């Protein structure tokens, strides 16, 4: 079986000609970005000094390397934050459809929250949120 054969067998709607608008749009998008970058690069004034290349940190002097080892606690808290933050993504659509979903929706979300409470309980008990050593 060959690609050409596949394409010939496909329904009319899927022929290459029908994708022309998409191709044009793609071309336009890429072309616009490229043109803009080149044009700004050529038109803008240039004055290169060491100060201008330095990292801007709200006027504070930079010191040390960015890749210093950090306490694992930061990551732990961060990942737990993300976990509980994402919860909201589920709650929001549920809140919108609260009436439509009725009791069965309520039970489902209750179960979902239950799981989170169990997890929360576990991380508290394991001392994952204790900041001091």
């Amino acid at each position: 079986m060959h690609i050409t054969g596949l394409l010939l067998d496909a329904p009319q709607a899927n022929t290459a000609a029908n994708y022309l608008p998409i191709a044009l749009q793609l071309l336009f998008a890429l072309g616009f970005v490229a043109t803009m970058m080149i044009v700004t690069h050529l038109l803008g004034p240039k004055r290169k000094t060491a100060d201008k290349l330095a990292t801007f940190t709200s006027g504070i002097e930079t010191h040390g390397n960015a890749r210093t080892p950090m306490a694992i606690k930061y990551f732990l808290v961060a990942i737990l934050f993300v976990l509980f933050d994402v919860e909201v993504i589920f709650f929001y659509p549920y809140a919108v459809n609260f009436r439509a979903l009725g009791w069965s929706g309520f039970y489902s979300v209750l179960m979902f929250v239950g799981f989170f409470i169990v997890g929360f309980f576990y991380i508290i008990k394991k001392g994952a949120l204790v900041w001091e050593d």
Partner: protein
Amino acid sequence: MNAIILSAVLGVVMMFSSVFVKNKSALKHIAAAGLLVLLIANIADTYGCSLFKIDLHNMLRFDKFGLFFNTIGIGATLIYVVLSGRDIEKSGNYVAEYFALIFFVLCGLTLLTSFGNLLMLFIGIEILSIPLYILTGSDKRNLKSNEAAIKYFLMGSFSTGIMLMGIALIYGGTGSFQLEVVRSVFASYKGVSFLEIAGLLFLLVAMAFKVSAAPFHFWTPDVYDGAPSVFTSFMATVVKAAAFVAFIRLFDARVTETSAAVDWKMLFSILIISTLLIGNITAVFQQSVKRMLAYSSIAQAGFMLFALFSLNDMAKEGLLLYAAAYSLATIGIFAILIKMKDVSFEGYNGLAKTQPLLAATNTIFLLSLAGIPLTAGFFAKYYMLASVIKTGSYTWLVIFAVLFAAVSAYYYFRVIQAMYFKNGEAQTDTITPGFKAGMVIVAAIIVIVGILPQTILNWFYF
């Protein structure tokens, strides 16, 4: 259904037991009791006694094959925990969590034996894999363990990506995730479109990765070698067998035989040949028994792939027998390996003098892996090859496999040779009488299955 929910609940129970149970050595008893409950619940399920009645919309479909495999998997895990529980205890500070992760792996296993929907396959694979990434890295202070975990995770994610790509392509081609719909599409189309076949091919690659079939096996030696030996034992046996069951469930005869556009048998035979070749040949030159076992597990996967090659009833029976025989023998070998002070071949020198019973049982396990008659391994291999013969073609593949079974005898016998015929003082940890009794029971099961395979196989007719 029993096993899926109970394993998840038991996993959570194990997690909390770390909070409430302060006595570390009690944890393995809790885990063993939990596994026993799980085993009984699953057997009850097999005989139609399900605790949960939930409308699943065909997301999961339970059949006897899957449930029977659950029994094998849970039973093997129980034996594993009983034999190596003490070593799990020693491997780190978070003992309860290790057991919890094992239960979650079992949850993934039970999903994989019953999925009816490609999403469930994906979820099952992930539930199976993620705990393993953690278990691999559980020896936190060991650089090799960390490295193995990261590698496993990276490559596992890569294969997951391939799998999702495959599922997406199939969805694009058939418009459904349901396995039945996918099958009926494959069965009805005169010429299946490129999308579906490419999707199936991606799925094949992802599953081949999970069962460590060459040339997608690269993670296996590094991960098995780096992971703490106790968890390697679990990964190489129960987990791998579960992946195989998912594999055969996915590539059911109806998917592959009807899509005549692709010679699936040819594809599988390429996988089998390269797996047998790489697994066996590379195992020959290993210096560490543990790493040799990693390659041997690749080689054994080559044999299990025959079930996917022939896809008949005999292959399904044979796969169950193979999974049981291989898992038991490997768990036994690893249980001894964990007790060894030195896991190189030299470390086994003279074990027959210091620990005659362990040497004897280890010999039985190794012979079973090599497929010597009067052991379960022989009949497992026999069924696999017979299923190929039954398909009536590709006889040369059988000859090839037999040749490589002969090669495999070389590296298995190297261990036996070291134990019996080399001088040395093999050092082991203290061996309890209970451990010895457990080894004898496992060896006895292997020999009994090897002598009376029919009694075991009679259960398989479903």
